[in-house]
Structures are given as structure tokens and as C-alpha cells.
């Protein structure tokens, strides 16, 4: 559905994405994990053709076989909502407070699909019901402020599904929600992806949320794609030192771990301006080799994917 090859994004402060290659098949669920400044949100925006003006893109993006490299805003616009749709972290601000829920969901149906109002209304009702919103008929007449955060996120999902997109990009869709609601939204996204054969790209900083939602995982650090693979495989057997550190540093609710020191990744996440030239993780890596800071590691195959680390280079 989506193929990205050698995608880079240069911002005035530094390189936000470096040579990222990635593909997502129809109906596949991919988790995009990283900390602040990893480039995960920039990648999500690039897939929507919505990178900020200041960013210089290079590399190839193809959507459903259509080459979108260097496409203009006018070329992207018809694809958004129909081929690729997006939902965001903050369900509070993403809805117009003065427009009723029903009108909001009907708008793309009338605008993009040229539906008549009567048909659009029936379709909007179906969509809201599909996202598990209770009493969708009554909710159609309500305004955003009358809904809870979880309900609003469901409305946004219904809105994203309106034109039956092949890919749904969810940028931290559960971060602003309470745990119970977050679980339900995560499960809803999984179900929708299965039922509709829709690819799902789930962007998050939270390994637990991604683990539940996805079957494949891509870990990003400092604008690089450092490791990809099957979600369960990467979590159980991470190969890149950063992925290893990230998983180890995450506290787990385990009686044996209570008040035990957590293994840490030393240092802080570097800002875009002072990323190392070679491996972006150089300087914080426990297993660093002399060449790591200067030479960028190639992606080497792992059990179910790839990891970009000099340590994985096969012996000659």
C-alpha cells in the first residue's frame, strides 16, 4: 500500500529523517516507535504529504502504486481521506466546536464522494456505529464538547474512515486517553483494520500500546529507522542496542522488579542540531565501536526484519 525509499527530511535545525525505507502491505498493522525527536511524526506527516514547508524532502514515496515523490499539494489533496487518512493525539482540538458531530462526519461524504445529504446521513450513522459509539443517532445531533475524550476519538476515527481509506495513520491516538479507554480505542483500531483490510500505521512512544496494536514494528531514533521486524520478535529479541536499551529501560509490573534499579540508556536524546554523523545512537551506546560515530551502519537482516548496527555485520 505504502512504499517509502530512501526518504530524508532536512529541517533548518538538522536532519529530521535520514534515508528511511519502509513498506506497508494492504491490511498490515505497523507500529512506529520512537522518543521525542526520533522523526516518527515527521514520517507520518510525510506519508500524508503534510510535512512543514521548512522541511526539504528527498527520496521516494509511493502510495498504492502511485508515485508521490515531489507531488504538489494539489496532487496530494485528492488522495488524503480516500487513500490515506490520519488521526491525531488530541481529540479535543481536532473537532470544530461549533459543528454538530453528524455534520462533521457527513462533510467528507458530501464533499469527496458527492453523496446526497440523505445518503450521507445514513452512511455517517453507520460509520459512527462501526466505531462503537453508543447511541450514534443522538450523538449525531450533539456538539464536540458534549462528548468525552474517548467518544471524540471515536468520532475522529469515523471521520477518517468516511472515504474508506487504504491506510490509516494514527499518531499517538491513545496518549491523551485514560488507560481503559486507550485499550478500547487500540482494540477498535485493530478490529477496523482487520474488518476492512485497511493498513494501520500506529505511531507511539509507548511500547505497550504498540505491542497490543501491531504485528510489525519499526523503531526510530534520531531520524533513522534503526530496527524493523515482527512486533513479538523485536520485543522478545531486540537486536539493535537502542531497541534493547529502550525495552530494558521500560519498567514492568513484575513483583521481582519492585524497587530495583532500571537499566538505563546513558545521556539524553540529542537535539536535531547535534546528531552524530554516523550511527545516530553513537555516544549513548553501551556496545559502541570506534567507527560508530563516523560511519553510518548498513541495515543487516535479522530473524524477521532488519537492524542498522555495525555489530550485526556478518564476519567476512
Amino acid at each position, binding site marked *: 500500500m505504502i512504499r517509502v525509499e530512501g526518504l530524508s527530511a532536512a529541517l533548518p535545525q538538522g536532519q529530521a529523517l535520514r534515508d528511511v525505507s519502509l513498506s506497508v502491505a494492504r491490511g498490515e498493522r505497523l507500529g512506529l516507535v520512537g522518543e521525542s525527536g526520533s522523526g516518527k511524526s515527521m514520517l507520518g506527516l510525510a506519508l500524508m504529504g503534510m510535512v512543514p514547508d521548512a522541511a526539504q524532502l528527498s527520496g521516494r514515496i509511493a502510495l498504492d502504486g502511485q508515485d508521490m515523490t515531489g507531488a504538489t499539494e494539489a496532487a496530494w489533496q485528492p488522495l488524503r481521506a480516500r487513500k490515506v487518512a490520519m488521526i491525531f493525539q488530541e481529540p479535543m482540538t481536532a473537532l470544530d466546536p461549533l459543528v454538530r458531530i453528524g455534520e462533521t462526519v457527513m462533510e467528507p461524504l458530501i464533499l469527496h464522494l458527492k453523496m446526497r445529504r440523505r445518503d450521507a446521513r445514513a452512511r455517517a450513522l453507520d460509520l459512527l456505529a462501526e466505531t462503537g459509539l453508543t447511541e450514534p443517532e443522538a450523538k449525531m445531533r450533539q456538539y464536540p464538547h458534549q462528548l468525552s475524550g474517548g467518544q471524540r476519538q471515536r468520532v475522529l476515527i469515523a471521520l477518517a474512515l468516511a472515504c474508506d481509506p487504504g491506510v490509516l495513520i494514527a499518531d499517538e491516538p491513545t496518549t491523551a486517553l485514560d488507560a481503559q479507554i486507550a485499550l478500547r480505542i487500540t482494540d477498535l483500531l485493530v478490529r477496523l483494520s482487520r474488518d476492512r483490510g485497511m493498513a494501520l500505521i500506529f505511531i507511539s*512512544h509507548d511500547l505497550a500500546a504498540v505491542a497490543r496494536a501491531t504485528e510489525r514494528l519499526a523503531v526510530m531514533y534520531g531520524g533513522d529507522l534503526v530496527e524493523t521486524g515482527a512486533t513479538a520478535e523485536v520485543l522478545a529479541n531486540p537486536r539493535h542496542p537502542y531497541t534493547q536499551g529502550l525495552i530494558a529501560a521500560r519498567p514492568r509490573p513484575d513483583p521481582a522488579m519492585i524497587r530495583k534499579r532500571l537499566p538505563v540508556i546513558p545521556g539524553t536524546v540529542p537535539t536535531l542540531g547535534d546528531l552524530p554523523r554516523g550511527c545516530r545512537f553513537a555516544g549513548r551506546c553501551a556496545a559502541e565501536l570506534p567507527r560508530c560515530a563516523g560511519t553510518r551502519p548498513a541495515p543487516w537482516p535479522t530473524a524477521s526484519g532488519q537492524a542498522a548496527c555495525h555489530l550485526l555485520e556478518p564476519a567476512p
Partner: protein
Amino acid sequence: MTAPLLIAEGLRKTYPRPRRRLLRAEPPLVALEDASFAIAPGETLGIVGESGSGKTTLARLVMGFERPDAGCVRLDGQDIHALPPRALQRLRPRFQMIFQDPYGSLDPRRQVGWSIAEPLRAAGITGRTSLRDRVAEALEQVGLSAADAARYPHEFSGGQRQRIAIARAVVTRPALLVADEAVSALDVSVRAQILNLLMDLQEAMGLGLLFIGHDMAVIAALCDSILVMQEGRVVEAGPTARLITAPAHPYTRALMDAARGETLTRGAAP
């Protein structure tokens, strides 16, 4: 068992709601209902809950920022809400707080050293050299250097700022630290560093810690016992080991599910 450092008994707090009709007052919003707990010196109590659970209200009551409608908070046996303002001010060095947002908890217009020294000045310590020495000591305790005192908050990363906020909280050598979502805004790799730092400081200083958060995994890693809150009420409480192996309340189980995402996938395919 040593005498508890902090005792909270039957805390209740309501907030008035705006009227929707002219002649009928809305019933007040009950933010907190009948919360009781105790913390011994060196002990860590975790309060886990989500937005609207009343956990932040609880922190504000314990810190004496607001008065409870009912119940009391005792520190070293003294009811802090019954104390006259001057006496409460004298007690301040004994209990300090760390906030969620490391970007908002430091005055952007003040040098870091000034902010760290603030609790000392409020306690009447004003000698230039003694202030500078105490600030330097606190900075080094949290893994920064004495020279950082002359820099401004925007020169530091989020994790470093949280270290500065912790330095400010421990500079008076308090007995109790209240941490409200103190690691929630931090990246995973930095979060582990701060959690370790808190444990180190606790052991070095015998600090009691009231750690408030929404992530069961973080709370479980740090706390001796846990209080689970939902909609202003304590729904479950107990020692951490018991609570995470055999959660009784459905809400506690949901929090555990959310915290355990990765183990779920590893165990069985969904």
C-alpha cells in the same frame, strides 16, 4: 514499625460547579472522597489513577495548597491545615514537591541556582556562601554540576530540568517528597534515569515519597505500596507485590492490562 511521617485521614474535597440555571445551584463536583493513607520515613506510596481520579487534588491537599472539606493531613503529627500560616511556612522545608512538566516548573527568567535556592531563602537561610554551597551540593546529588547553577532553564533538556526540579525539592533535606506525574512527560530512556535517581536519593536521605502517576508499570517499579483511585475514590489499596499479582478491582486489572501490553503479545497472539 516507625511512627508514620505522613498521615492522611478521610480527606474529602469538593469544587463548586458553575450554575446552569439562575435559581438552581448545581451540586458540587466531588473531586476526592474519604481518602486515607500513611507513609513511614523512607517508604514510597504510589497513587495511581487517571485524569479526574482526584490524585492531583490529593497532592494539592497534602502540600497544603488547598484546604480539605473534611479530614486532615498530619506531618510529624501536626495537622498542616490547622497550623497558622507562619508555622506552616516553618514546616515547609520538611515536605517538598516535584511537578509533571519540567518545562513549566522552573521560572524561565531565573537562573537555575536561584530557583534551587528558593526554598532555602524562604526558610530564612540567606548567607551567600551557604546558599551557594547548598545549591552546589543539591546539583551534584542529582547528577549535575555546580557550574550549572548559573545557567537558565532553556539551556537544559527535559530530563535535566527534571533533575533541577528534584534538586530544588531536596535542597532543604526534606523528610517527604510529593511527586505528581514527575516522569510522565519524559522519554522512556530518560524516565528510567530519573526513577533510579529518586530511588538513590530516597535511600541516601531516608525520604518518604508520595508518587502520583497514571502508569501502573512506573508506579509498580518504584513503590512499596499502591493506592488505586478512580473518580475521587480509593478503589483498591495494598502492597505492590500483592496488587500487581492479584489485582482485585476491575479497574486495577485494566491499568495492569495497559501497562503489560508487550507481555500480552509475547504470551499469546491477539
